[in-house]
């Protein structure tokens, strides 16, 4: 009954592959995160830098965590940010939002509020109009989780 047998199998598989250091749930989260990222940017290899993230170090309320993203970009027709993708690494599902930008926006800047279930890293990917991808990561501690309560 229930998911227990498959968890045991996953544990056994993880152990067989030498991944026993990760508990099954962390492994499943890593897989879900990788799949969500692949869905948005394919196999592009991101470069670090060129993105400023504005987040609190500690979020009192995980249900409403302010997130500000600024990508360095001239925002011209020839050179602009095509998309910004936000992922939460330790939420029940990693997808937060994707923003499709155009050169009509003079700044590649978006602010929003996100849900975080627990302490985790937030991963932001920016897809540039030339196809390159940039990445920035913020570590946020969460006092009260904001997903399941």
């Amino acid at each position, binding site marked *: 009954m229930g998911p227990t047998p498959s968890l045991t199998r996953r544990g056994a598989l993880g152990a067989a592959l030498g991944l026993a250091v990760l508990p099954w749930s962390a492994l499943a989260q890593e897989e879900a995160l990788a799949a969500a990222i692949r869905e948005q940017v394919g196999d592009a290899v991101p470069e670090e830098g060129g993105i400023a993230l504005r987040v609190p170090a500690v979020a009192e309320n995980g249900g409403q965590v302010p997130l500000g993203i600024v990508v360095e970009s001239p925002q011209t027709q020839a050179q602009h940010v095509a998309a910004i993708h936000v992922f*939460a690494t330790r939420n029940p*599902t990693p997808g937060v939002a994707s*923003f499709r930008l155009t050169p*009509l*926006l003079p700044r590649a800047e*978006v602010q929003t*509020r996100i849900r975080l279930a627990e302490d985790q890293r937030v991963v932001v990917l920016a897809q540039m109009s030339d196809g390159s991808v940039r990445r920035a990561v913020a570590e946020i501690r969460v006092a009260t989780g904001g997903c399941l309560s």
Partner: protein
Amino acid sequence: MSGSLSTPRIRIPRQVRAGEVFEIRTLIEHPMETGLRQDGSRTVPRDLLNRLVVRVNGEVALQAELRNGTSPNPFHVFFLRLERNSEIEFAWTDERGRVARTTARVTVA
């Protein structure tokens, strides 16, 4: 949930100078239920806004795809620059296809 989506709130200047970069803030009341939350023994059904589209004089300027990690009462801030009087349209869509739409006119001095 049934009926229509709630009326969005937009903060946008009525008048700007040509070429000036200005801020737009948007908020729409919505529970953004993921379908994962338990209320006692009952699972609260999924009810999610999944899209925000901002058009300037009919042309898409910004499109947001919202997922589980977007907070209830989705709030967004972004920036625009205009060269002429413009109509800005904001449209949120939920997973059942319902739309909340509002427009703002901005005069360029």
